[in-house]
Structure formats: C-alpha cells, structure tokens
C-alpha cells in the first residue's frame, strides 16, 4: 500500500509503490477513487485519476489492485450506457441518483440478472480459445455466443443448460490436470487487441443508408474512416445516422467529451426508433459510452479503448460491428492535458509526440477477420472517428495524424452547412479507398454501378470548374450544353446527395434505392441531351414535369419507389416532353 506524495490536477504521484506495474489500476484515498498507473520510478508511481481530485491530501492511501484496466465482457452489454471506465450509468442512476458523485463503484454487468444459457458442445468436447460453447439470447436482435477465452484449451468436463448470472459457472474445463470454471462473463485488458486467426481485405459494403457515403465514398466492413468538420457542420448528426441505420449486427456509440443534451437525445431516440431490417428497437443492437465534456477528462482516454474492446469481443462471435467515436479530438486533448501535467516534451500544438501512434493503436483495431476457434466464422469491426478541428482548419495535428491512418475521409464543409445542404460531406474533398474493392459487391446490386458513380463524380467535378466562370460572367452567358451540365449537377446535389435525417423515408436509403435514384438522374442527362439537340432550351427542360417528378423521388415511400421510377423511365423512353399541363 502506498501513500499520496504529490497532487497536480488529475495526476497524482504516490510513494511506497514498489511492486506495482504500469497500467495497474489503483484505488485512492478514503473515497477509493479510481486511477491507473502510467509511470513508475523507484518507489514512486505516476497515476492518472479517473475522477475529480479536489480535496485529496498528501499521505492518503493508494492501494494497488494488481490488475491492469479490464473491460467486462458478457451478456448485458447491449442496450447499456457506460461512462469512460465502463461503469453502468443506468445502475448509477438507480443507485446514486441524477448526478455523478465520485467514488461510486458499479459493475459493468449486472451481477443479479439470470441469463438462459444453451450449450452447443457436450461434455467431453475438446475446445480451445475462441470456441463457442453455448449461446444466450441477449436481446431480441443479439444472440450472445459464449466463447472459451483466448489462450485457454482443454476438455469440457461438464456443461449444462440453465439460468445463470454472469459470474456463475456454466461449464468446467479440464486443462493439464486442473479444472477451470467458465462463466458467461470474461474480462479482457482494454488496451490490448484481442487475437484472431487472420485478417481479410475489406471488400463488402457497409450499408449506412446515407447515399453520398454508400454510393460515392463507400465504406467497407472492417474499414476505418474519419469525419472531420467544424462546428455546425452536422458531425454528430452524421454519426448518429450511421449508428442508427448501419446494416451491421451491433453498433457501439462512444460519446467522448461531447454534449450531454445530445447524448440524451441519442439515448432517447434509440429507444423509439426501429431497425429497418428487423423492425425491432435500435436499442437492442447498440452499446453506448457517454463520457460527456464535463465528466472527468482522464476517463476520455480510456473510453475509446473500452469501446473498441467491446467491438472486438462481438466481432469474435462472428458479427459485423460498427464503432463510432465522437470525438477523437477531445480524446487527443485529454492526452495533451495529461502529457502537460507530466511535463513531457510536447509535439505540435502541445499535443504529445505519441499522438500519432496512439491514434493508430485505436484505428488499427478495426478490421475484418477470421475469428479464433470453431465453428469457423468471420467478423468485422469498422471504426469511424469524428475529428473536431479548431477553426475548421484541417491542417491541425489531430486531423493530419488521423488522415495518415484512415482509408476513407468524409470531409464536412462549413460552406455547405451555411447553404443548409445536409449532409455537409464535401464531394470534392472526400475520398474512399474502398471504392475499388467494394465495386464487386455493388455490381451484384447493379451492374452499371461503376459507370453511374463515375459519371456523377465527373459531372460534379466539371460543375466546380464551371462555377468559377459563372461567378465572373453569370449563368446566362454560358453555352447551352454547359447549362445542361449545371442542371444535371444541381439535380445530383439536390435530388440525390442532399438527404434529410429527419424525414421518415429519406433518413435511410438502401443501396437499391440509392442506385435507382442516381441512375435515373444520369439517364435524365442522356434524355435531356437528346432534347437539347432538337433545339429545346435548358430552361424549358428544367421546368419540365419529368424533372419535377425526379426531384420528388426522395420522399416516395420504399414500397412505391420502383413503380414511381419505372414510370419516369418509361416516359423518358417515350421520348417526348411536353411543358403543357398534363404532359410528362
């Protein structure tokens, strides 16, 4: 047992700490505040404290737990809300009320609740780390697969169906003459990646339901992406949309140093919204981590690792997981603050020099993998991190270090936000390196995907070039074919890229629907070009009813969209366009 020797904000130094290890969890003072050793020198330990240190005094006791920071993994995670060090905020609300007083301790997983365990192996089976030995129906949407913890192997001595708490023994494992009890819960050090058999290239589309992402800058299952954007660009709405509608089996939302009211909004909306695939409440496929900006800074740093550890754990069951982190900038700022307290030599803008390696340690835990153990299965963890660059200036260290790691960038644009073009993902600055690897996936939905996508991107690119001329001479001075290009580009922007998060139909667009919409605009381009050649003015084409019908396709319900688009296409194939009332 050691004693406090020095206190400086969230960092304390304790003496008489010989025998401790780096990253060991300690309990500090009368209130047993949680902390983690981040450095040792002789008998002194430097400790970052996960709670407010106001009122601590020199000489108070510091007790090592002998363990490094572990995430609890087992049934009961899904639908729960955690703080940065995986204390259940739901339990804390019930036990200590509406405010987060320090020194409160709760388990991540409910110790009382019984779960129905159904074995899938029999006594006598030879098992090893990662093998699935049974299942628990965790929520209506998640079948929790109970696995032998990595690194263990042996023969199942006994296993029985029944109702168990997370700590009770469900099976006995005989291993080298010893018997090890297996429970529903296992623990894993949060900072350490969980093992897998091998990694695959990410080639399957992660359907987010956001058209500009899915179609123009697709994200692959197991990929990693960043969303940088200044304030007011709708970063959080974008991330919430992805956490809501992504067609993954489980989503993890890490709110790191962000707004409390927004977090409340997320938590409430997930109780009310339904998953488009299964029709069940989204809460049944979501884990939340809420470490808002006024909660202890140090806990921000670990919250991201707790989140990714949970993602890997469900990945290991053979599921596709999406983790969104809002915002990695607040996470980096927490590191900067600790670094400054430790009087480390700062790197750029005061951030620690290990900012880049810490960011990669997080993003690199994404991936699509063949899981350990049997039966053979493939799982993936996809990571999307928000970045909040000061002054919307992307040259700052967090954005730049992130861009070196991620393979897709969704760049949010203040100018688009001021024009109320949402989502504000800028189509000229964003990119995705997955576009080439998921095209096989897309071409199964629509063989002409690559062609349509390219045409759309080229049109948008040309529009940007023309806009400079328009600014000088006005739109009227352009030749007709350029005017037509501007019209088509505007249709792509307004009738395809713009998408309302609040419209019940538009909020989620499945890949088939997205393709129907964009390919219709591209077809309209050919159709209009034909009309222009016969001498029709672009202004007339723009006022045509067929164009108006295209601009209304966003709001057409899913069960009517095929028919709606079909009739537009038939009319275009018919060739005629009439501006008269009642014409096409």
């Amino acid at each position, binding site marked *: 047992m050691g004693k406090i020797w020095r206190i400086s904000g969230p960092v304390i130094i304790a003496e008489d700490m010989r025998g401790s290890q780096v990253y060991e969890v300690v309990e500090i003072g009368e209130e047993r505040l949680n902390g983690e050793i981040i450095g040792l020198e002789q008998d002194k330990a430097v400790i970052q404290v996960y709670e*407010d240190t106001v009122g601590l005094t020199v000489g108070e006791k510091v007790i090592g737990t002998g363990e490094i920071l572990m995430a609890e993994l087992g049934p009961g995670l899904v639908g729960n809300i955690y703080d940065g060090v995986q204390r259940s905020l739901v339990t804390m609300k019930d036990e200590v009320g509406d405010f987060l007083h320090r020194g409160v301790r709760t388990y991540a997983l409910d110790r009382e609740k019984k779960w129905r365990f159904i074995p899938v192996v029999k006594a006598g089976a030879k098992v090893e780390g990662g093998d699935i030995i049974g299942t628990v129906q965790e929520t209506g949407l998640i079948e929790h697969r109970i696995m032998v913890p990595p690194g263990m192997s042996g023969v199942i001595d006994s296993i029985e169906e029944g109702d168990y708490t997370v700590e009770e023994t469900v099976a006995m494992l005989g291993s080298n003459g010893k018997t090890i009890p297996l429970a529903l819960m296992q623990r894993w050090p949060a900072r350490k990646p969980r093992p897998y058999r091998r990694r695959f290239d990410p080639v399957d589309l992660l359907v987010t339901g956001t058209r500009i992402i899915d179609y123009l800058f697709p994200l692959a299952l197991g990929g990693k992406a960043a969303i940088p954007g200044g304030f007011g660009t709708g970063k959080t709405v974008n991330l919430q949309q992805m956490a809501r509608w992504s067609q993954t089996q489980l989503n993890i939302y890490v709110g790191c140093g962000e707004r409390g009211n927004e977090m409340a909004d997320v938590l409430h909306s997930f109780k009310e919204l339904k998953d488009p695939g299964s029709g069940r409440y989204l809460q049944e496929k979501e884990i939340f981590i809420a470490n808002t900006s006024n909660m202890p800074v140090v806990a921000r740093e670990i919250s991201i690792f707790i989140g990714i550890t949970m993602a890997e754990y469900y990945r290991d069951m053979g599921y596709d997981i999406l983790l969104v982190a809002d915002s990695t900038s607040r996470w980096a700022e927490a590191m900067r603050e600790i670094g400054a307290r430790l009087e480390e030599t700062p790197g750029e803008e005061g951030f620690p020099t290990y900012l880049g390696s810490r960011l990669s340690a997080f993003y690199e835990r994404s991936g699509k993998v063949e899981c350990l153990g049997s039966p053979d299965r493939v799982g993936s963890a996809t990571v999307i991190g928000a970045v909040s660059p000061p002054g919307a200036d992307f040259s700052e260290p967090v954005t730049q270090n992130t861009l070196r790691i991620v393979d897709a960038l969704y760049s949010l644009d203040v100018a688009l936000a001021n024009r109320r073009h949402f989502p504000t993902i800028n189509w000229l600055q964003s990119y995705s390196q997955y576009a080439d690897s998921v095209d096989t996936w897309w071409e199964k939905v629509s063989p002409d995907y690559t062609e349509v996508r390219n045409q759309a991107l080229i049109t948008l690119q040309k529009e940007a070039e023309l806009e400079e001329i328009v600014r000088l001479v006005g739109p009227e001075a352009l030749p007709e074919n350029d005017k037509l290009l501007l019209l088509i580009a505007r249709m792509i922007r307004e009738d395809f890229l713009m998408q309302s998060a609040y419209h019940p139909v538009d909020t989620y667009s499945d890949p088939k629907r997205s393709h129907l919409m964009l390919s219709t605009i591209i077809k309209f381009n050919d159709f209009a070009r034909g009309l222009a050649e016969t001498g029709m003015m672009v202004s007339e084409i723009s006022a045509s009813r067929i164009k108006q019908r295209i601009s209304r396709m966003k709001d057409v319900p899913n069960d009517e969209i095929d028919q709606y688009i079909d009739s537009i296409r038939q009319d275009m194939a018919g060739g005629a366009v009439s501006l008269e009332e009642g014409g096409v």
Partner: protein
Amino acid sequence: MDSMQLFTRQTKAISTARRSLLIIESIPGIQFSEIVDVELGTGEVRSGQVIEVGKGTTVVQVFGGVSEVDLLNSKVRYKGETLKLPVSPDILGRIFDGSGKPIDGGPPIISQKYQDINGVPANPASRMPPAEFIETGISAIDGLNVLVRGQKLPIFSGSGLPHNKIAAQIIRQASLKGKSDDFAIVFGAIGVSYDDAAYFISNLEETGALSRAVGFINTASSPVIERLSTPRLALTAAEYLAWEMDMHVLVILTDITNYADALRELAAMRGEIPSRRGYPGYMYTDLASLYERAGRISGREGSVTILPILTMPDDDITHPIPDLTGYITEGQIVLSRPLDRKRIYPPIDVFLSLSRMMKEGIGEGKTREDHNNVFMQSYAMYAEGNYLREITTVIGSEALTERDKVYLEAADRFEREFIAQDENSRRTVEETLGVAWDIFSMLPEEDLKLINEKYIKNYLPEPSENE
C-alpha cells in the same frame, strides 16, 4: 467543516513569491484545490487556492496577485474547504460579487447548505432532451433559431454591437412567458464595465424582475481570478433554483471573452504550455464545465438554460473563444456588423446563426404546425434574395428577371420587417409567423415549394389591392 476550524492550520514558511504563485513548505492535511487566506505583513488578507500539493511543497495561486507579499511576515491560513456558495431561497433578488459576497448592502445569506461552485456532472442517462419552446418575443430567434428550455445558446457578438440590448430584451420578454412564479434569472457579469453591469441591473429593476433574479458581478476592475469563479457561482445558484426549487432558470453570462482571457492570464502565470493563441489546451474542457451545466433532468420540474454572450475578437468566428464555444453549445446566435450598419435591430445573421434544438421545440402543440415549413421557406427565400444581391453587384440589375426582382424586394422586406423590430416590441410566435406569411404573399405561389399545401390554404394572406 466546523471541526476543522477548531485548530488553525497556518504557516509562515513561504519560500517563493512569483507572478501570482506562492511556494510554501507543506504542512499536513492540505487538500488539493482548497481555499487559503494569505495575510500580508500590512494586515491585508487575500484569498488563494492550492493548485498543487506535495509532501515537501505546496503551490498556492493568490487571487489578486502577490504584490506586497513579503516572505518574512506574510502568513498562509488553510481553510480546509473548497470554494462554496451558501444557497437558500433568499438569494433571489440579491446581488453578489465574484467571490459570493453580497454587494447590494443587504445582509449575508444565512444557510445550512453550502454547494461546491464546481457543481457535479449530471448523469447522461438522467438527462432529458430539451424540447420546450421559450418565447423570447424576438422574431429572428423565435422564428428561425428557437431557444428551448435546458439549451445553451450563445450570442456571438463583436465589440460595439448591441448584444447587451438583445440579452436585456430576452430577459424582459422571456420572463413574461409562462407562470411567473417558477421563472428565475441568474445573471453573471464577468469582467464587464461598471456601466454594462448597471444597465442589466436597472433593466431588471424596471421590469420588476429583480425579485426573481440573482446577480453575480465581477467588474473590469475586480480581481482577475474572480472572473473564473463568477460564472461558477452563477451556475451554482441556477442549479440550486432549478433542481431544488423547481424553477426554470435562464442564466445570462457576459462576457465569456473576458472569462477566457482570465483563464489564459492565470495559466500563463503558472507557466503552462499554451495552445492556440496562448489559450490553455484545456480551454474546451474548462468552458464545457460551465456550459454543460445547462439541461433538464428527467423527473425534475426545473431547467437550466444558458445564454452566454461573447465578443469575437476582430469579429473572427474561428478565434478559439467562439470556436470552442460553438463546439460545446447547441447552436449560436451570430450578430452581423453589416446588418447593424444598415440600422437593423436586432442585427442577427440568419445564415450563420443556428439552433440545434429547434426541431424539438417547434410544431403543433408547441408553437404552430406550419413553423418548420415557414422556417425553411423563409431561409430559402432570404438566401435566394441574398444570392441575387451578390450577383447584381457583378452583372448589374439589368440582367435580372421580374422574378429575381421580386426576390430582391422580399429579402429587403425580410430584413426590415421580419428580422428588425423594436427593442420593446414583443411578438408572439403567431405574429412572427404572420410577418413571414405576409412576405411570402408577394412570391409566386408555386415557389412556396417547402410549404405543405394545407398550410398555404390556411395561412397565406390574400395579396392586398395596392401591391
């Protein structure tokens, strides 16, 4: 706390006095962050706070600086407590300084209850998403940037712009809405001029709102360190009134720029590594520890709504103070110098302003069914008019079509009739929407694409004869 007062923990062993810091030999039992009294050789007593404590030495930051501190005769007395505010219903109608002492000539607050001015974070799982409309009577806010209970919505202003006038108008008018007995105003003046502080107080007096208000005033000439405690005292009072007295509290904090500058000044004195423009790297977290105290808690009646005011240095919205604020608050009301030059009051920049909570606060049963449609159409109309204005400066008005001219006129009317209003005019939300509909009536009806036809039928006025 009382038992600690039985013995005095006092020392004269000060080894260093530099900038605003004292380095003192440690005595047992010093708490991190506790408050100390520093008694100078002259007998003058200053407050200070323990910012670092170790086995050998303790570092104390002295509020008001270390001038005249001598190492021989000065004494440091540890108080054994962190900064606390006594709270009771009697704080209503009172005015305090930035250390919580009454400055209105009234008696001190007697209370059994002392609250830590740093507050305790609300459990995110206990929070309720804000959704109740606050009618400010100002069209540009009620129509386009709706404020809701529990929101934090700053005013981004510039020096010389009428932010104080707008804040005072909001205080006057918003407090009239709803049941008057459950409404309170907490006012925190941080490093403002004496005149500015007096303006708010006389405003509260005139409207009779002073009895339901609490003021914490740190003028430009008061100690810099108290700029950090002033908003915290104000928010502690607000939380008490909201969570324990079930009141709907509107907190006005002005000027956050002075707050941030004080933060920078004190950080520099401690020799901390600066981040952008010399502000400390933890400024986001520090500002969040203020703004995040806004909110609603499920199962509790009251609410804390925060309206911080800040002046953007050089009107630069990317300056760290507005920038970090914008990342924390739920939108911003931005004032525009060009509009102010056109004598438009309130000069609210509709394009840069935003309320993230608006969607939750409007619509049928809250304001009116057509509110969202009117908002979108107004925005589109004004944007189009503004775009045409810009074009006109390049290509001249000759090239404009008739339709274009209508939009130019609509944008002008929007500024003169919708955005602009008298300092004393209090428009109901119906009146605000009515002004918008009035302007819509000059547009071709087929252009009202963003409005549901049902609403057009119900609300679009017949064009009058002379137009």
